[in-house]
């Protein structure tokens, strides 16, 4: 299978794994890192560190400038408007937790939060717990038989009671990308805040938050070839003022006495404590580097890999979940437990994910105990796919 990746050479981690006879097909869990990310991190620490937004000394100014430059550059990458806000978080999970708590005071008993049936626990549990605590209704928007969100049905579910519509742009199990704009537009009209979980989607297509026209958008750096422990919460100008401060501590206050305090507006008011400055700077450098590449060529390469995996699985009679069209494919072998298959793939140095993929309700609704998932990134190549299929064939032979 001749599908070389011209970008593979920029990822020392994928080359190191190859030396260890490991084929990485679990990028939806976390992506390998490009050299530029590793170099930026190392340079940041080597030049001497300082805290941001606190000190008047020169190292502090330098750190603050680098930190705020990273914020602007990440906002550029999201194609945000100058008035929009980028808040740094620990990741998508924290971003959604922030929203569920910082918006909570707007909701009354009986108000509705709408999510899809295929949400990752990160975009389910914060809303579920909020709904339980405040007596709200959590409406779960169903999928059709292809595992795609039924947009028309979803739009019909909206009412004046709908307060939040929170949807993943790409399911981490089904791997299907679809246009959410009509739903977001209808939700806005109904007066609901719209939240897009971009954790899986952002790495496969640069987000355009203007075009998407959502109120909030979250993503995680580590799935975007960036460092661990950093994420972004994007908020539109009109939505950011609806957020109430949710975590408290250093550098988020304007004035403070023993009994009361006044807080800074976003973003700083939502970033208490010392931020992950080095990682944020390295994340911005990673995104700058990504933007310097031919995104069309990357998308086409990933689509070819995806098609090759899909075809190979279909030829072998594997049961594929839904009709995936992007980045990842989940499947089971008939009559074989997913963990048996995963164990034998692991024995052969193939790193795929097995289990419920942090989407237990989705798997339960499909009547599945679990599934295997192959997920792809720009550095994968035809050899990876070939290795996966020869390992799969061996495993199936042993287990059948």
């Amino acid at each position, binding site marked *: 299978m001749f599908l070389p990746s011209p970008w593979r050479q920029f990822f020392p981690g994928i080359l190191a794994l190859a030396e260890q006879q490991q084929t990485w097909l679990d990028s939806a869990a976390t992506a390998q890192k490009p050299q530029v990310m590793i170099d930026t991190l190392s340079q940041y620490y080597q030049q001497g560190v300082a805290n941001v937004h606190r000190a008047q000394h020169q190292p502090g100014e330098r750190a603050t400038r680098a930190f705020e430059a990273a914020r602007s550059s990440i906002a550029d990458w999201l194609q945000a408007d100058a008035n929009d806000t980028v808040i740094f978080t620990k990741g998508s999970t924290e971003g959604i937790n922030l929203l569920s708590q910082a918006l909570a005071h707007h909701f009354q008993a009986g108000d509705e939060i709408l999510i899809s049936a295929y949400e990752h626990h990160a975009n389910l549990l914060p809303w579920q717990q909020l709904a339980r605590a405040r007596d709200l209704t959590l409406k779960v928007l169903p999928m059709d038989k292809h595992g795609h969100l039924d947009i028309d049905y979803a739009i019909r579910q909206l009412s004046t009671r709908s307060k939040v519509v929170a949807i993943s742009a790409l399911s981490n199990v089904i791997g299907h990308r679809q246009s959410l704009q009509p739903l977001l537009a209808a939700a806005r009209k109904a007066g609901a805040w719209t939240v897009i979980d971009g954790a899986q989607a952002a790495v496969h297509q640069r987000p355009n938050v203007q075009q998407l026209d959502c109120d909030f958008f979250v993503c995680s750096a580590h799935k975007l070839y960036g460092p661990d422990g950093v994420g972004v919460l994007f908020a539109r100008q009109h939505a950011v003022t609806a957020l109430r401060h949710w975590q408290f501590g250093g550098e988020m206050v304007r004035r403070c006495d023993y009994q009361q305090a006044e807080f800074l507006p976003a973003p700083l008011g939502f970033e208490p404590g010392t931020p992950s400055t080095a990682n944020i700077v390295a994340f911005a450098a990673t995104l700058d580097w990504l933007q310097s590449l031919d995104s069309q060529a990357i998308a086409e390469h990933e689509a070819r890999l995806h098609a090759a995996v899909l075809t190979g699985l279909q030829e072998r009679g594997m049961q594929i979940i839904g009709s995936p069209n992007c980045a990842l494919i989940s499947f089971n072998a008939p009559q074989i437990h997913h963990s048996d298959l995963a164990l034998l793939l692991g024995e052969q140095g193939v790193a795929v994910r097995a*289990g419920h993929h942090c989407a237990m309700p989705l798997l339960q609704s499909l009547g599945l105990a679990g599934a295997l998932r192959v997920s792809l990134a720009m550095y994968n190549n035809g050899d990876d796919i070939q290795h996966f299929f020869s390992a799969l064939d061996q495993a199936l032979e042993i287990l059948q």
Partner: protein
Amino acid sequence: MSGLSRAAQQAVHDFQSCQQWEQRARLLLQWGAQLDELPEALRTPDNLVHGCETRVWLLLDQQADPLCFQVASEARLLRGLLALLLLRITGLNAKQMVEVDVAEWFALLGLSRQLSPSRSNGLTAVLLKMQALLAQN
């Protein structure tokens, strides 16, 4: 390792004779197939082992002398690992069971990697539940 039963010594010999992972996997499947089926009636939520993504049921038969664990798993390779675990502790009393160095046992069999602390493999969670059941006993 001292104190291995004859059957356990034979298993060590069989696994150590495996040259390749395929042979080890096939042997593990054979061991799994030998594990006594746990009746459906005993596959209750109470008997489920928490903390593994694959469903595993574990019971301690309080009446049996010597003590006897019963296990079941939906996954065949995990069933093999569980059968090998039971092989090691069968016939021991509670105190001896707790003292068994399970890591050493699986290392002898060339199956160390299956004892990972990761949630995906149920074996570690099974060991914890076994200890808890023995402590209650």
